């Protein structure tokens, strides 16, 4: 059996630059370094095209290339016979390589010099192991296959979105020590994502938003491709400079801070796709360099596929059957100081006693619930009625209602001890109001 590219991926992380030999038409060889020799699939790899140089001229004339790569841990060396096929200058593969190169550049002091112009895609014709001393690779601390099986079974048992997300993020921390993670739901109409579940942060950051295209999460969403960075790259993080750019979008949630690490050295965002449709993004990060490997990326993509199917299933059966409706209860007696709820219809933002809670779809839902509570003393609600509610005529509410409710539930739990949304069964929930409320609708003229 010939050596597979799958087995030499540790050589393809950009830790040691690859070496590429080419030859021009007159027979003069050329040898140069390339920052990235990137794994595409078992039969193809892509070289980072950063400069118009002799290597480039030669490969356009004569597509036969030879690459030499070294495993940065074991010193294993491989020689790869390649045939140059084509260059991509945008798209998922290009964006993935561009992000990874930004990390490599920043780590090696070459930011601003290493810039990706294209991804030179090559067919792997042969991989030859170069004889030489090498060390034994230590086995990883966990076995991804058994983790996937165990975690997959745990996820399959979950009956609502909130516990599905919790189980996944908790499971990643417990079984593979991925301690900082989050799930962001896509809102394609607004070209943004909103955080619905997080793990490992002092502030949950649920409700914070990331526009498509911004940082690893936004690029993963925009191009529906996993983005993995092995070293810190400011332009792909969510530091002040990147966040300052968000402020221009008045529909974007900027009041809730993004919970991510201030200086992640490793970042990975994988799209959660149902077919071609983006549902959400799973994001993980670490303060360590080179924390996530090609194998980790594969494993998270497998989990993301399962997650997508379950999200769709749970959304389809989120409506309650009428029989399971709990008896209508009289609202409990409210006591204590009056809670002032201020609502701005322009962006559906809600302030509780002048403190910001939430805006957008989740804000509109809460206002609707509170209005029903005040006018009709109702506390029991169903997903179905919200979905059919003409007052909540908001984009894509159908698809994401359950996720919006999770968001609302979490924000209330973090910000208010007077209001809560409590699940009472499949597709049903209760608005719990512990203090008297005063509703103030603020129109633009006020």
């Amino acid at each position, binding site marked *: 059996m010939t050596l597979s590219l799958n087995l030499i991926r540790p050589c393809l992380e950009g830790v040691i630059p690859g070496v590429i030999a080419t030859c021009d038409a007159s027979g003069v060889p050329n040898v140069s370094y390339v920052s990235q020799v990137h794994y595409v699939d078992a039969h193809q790899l892509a070289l980072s095209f950063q400069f118009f140089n002799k290597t480039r001229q030669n490969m356009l004339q004569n597509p036969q*290339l030879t690459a*030499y790569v070294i495993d940065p841990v074991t010193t294993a060396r491989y020689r790869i016979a390649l045939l140059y096929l084509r260059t991509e200058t945008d798209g998922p593969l290009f964006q993935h390589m561009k992000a990874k190169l930004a990390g490599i550049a920043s780590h090696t002091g070459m930011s601003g010099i290493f810039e990706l112009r294209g991804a030179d895609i090559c067919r792997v014709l042969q991989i030859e192991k170069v004889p030489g001393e090498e060390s034994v690779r230590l086995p990883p601390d966990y076995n991804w296959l058994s983790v996937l099986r165990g975690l997959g079974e745990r996820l399959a048992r979950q009956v609502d979105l909130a516990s599905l997300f919790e189980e996944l993020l908790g499971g990643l921390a417990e079984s593979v020590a991925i301690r900082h993670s989050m799930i962001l739901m896509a809102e394609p109409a607004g070209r943004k994502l909103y955080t619905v579940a997080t793990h490992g942060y002092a502030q949950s950051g649920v409700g914070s938003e990331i526009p498509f295209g911004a940082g690893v999460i936004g690029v993963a969403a925009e191009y529906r491709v996993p983005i993995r960075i092995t070293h810190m790259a400011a332009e792909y993080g969510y530091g002040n400079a990147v966040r300052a750019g968000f402020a221009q979008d008045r529909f974007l949630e900027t009041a809730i801070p993004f919970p991510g690490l201030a200086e992640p050295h490793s970042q990975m965002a994988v799209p959660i796709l149902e077919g071609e449709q983006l549902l959400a993004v799973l994001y993980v990060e670490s303060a360590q360099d080179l924390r996530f490997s090609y194998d980790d990326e594969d494993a998270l993509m497998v989990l993301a596929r399962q997650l997508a199917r379950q999200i769709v299933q749970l959304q389809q059966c989120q409506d309650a059957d009428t029989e399971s409706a709990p008896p209508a209860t009289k609202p409990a007696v409210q006591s204590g100081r009056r809670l002032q709820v201020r609502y701005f219809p322009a962006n559906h933002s809600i302030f509780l006693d002048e403190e910001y809670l939430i805006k957008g779809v989740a804000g509109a839902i809460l206002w609707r619930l509170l209005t029903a509570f005040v006018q009709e003393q109702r506390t029991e609600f169903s997903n179905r009625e919200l979905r059919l509610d003409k007052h909540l005529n908001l984009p894509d509410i159908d698809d994401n209602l359950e996720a919006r409710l999770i968001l609302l539930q979490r924000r209330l739990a973090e910000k208010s001890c007077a209001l809560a949304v409590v699940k009472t069964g499949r597709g049903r929930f209760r608005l719990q109001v512990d203090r008297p409320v005063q509703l103030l609708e603020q129109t633009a003229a006020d």
Partner: protein
Amino acid sequence: MEAVSGIARLLSPDNLAFIQKGVSINVASRDVRRVPSLTRALSCRVDADGQRLRIALSRSQSSDLLRDIEKSGAIAVVFTEPSTHRTLQIKGADAGEVTADTADRACLEHTRAAFGAEIGKLGFDAAFNTRLFQLAPDDLVVLAFTPQTVFQQTPGPNAGALLEPAP
């Protein structure tokens, strides 16, 4: 002023010191069908006559390259300092095997230590370097060639520039 001759016309004292100081070295050639061959070399020194460069490498790791060199003499050697990305490429057309001498072996020893210190700065331990340079005594082969062209290849705006010979 004394006329500069041989290698010194092509390579400044600074560049000559650079390629012999313990940097990463890779060598390419090609076969009759223009398919490139490539291997990692170990050390480099200037021949006693000041005309040729002598590149040491492992025979067992370089069979295609040695076959191609024997047939074509075409050679391209790239030198890079991992910690700074400083890079130089030197090409020639008359490469061939020469007998390794004690100076080549001494140069290899010196380079092994110097390169170990260089990559140590980047976090590679001594054992990694030892494995890179591990070589059975009868596995050493030395290629000698006359440099014809030299290119500055440090990443940046001047990458790829041909360095003109001194007058």
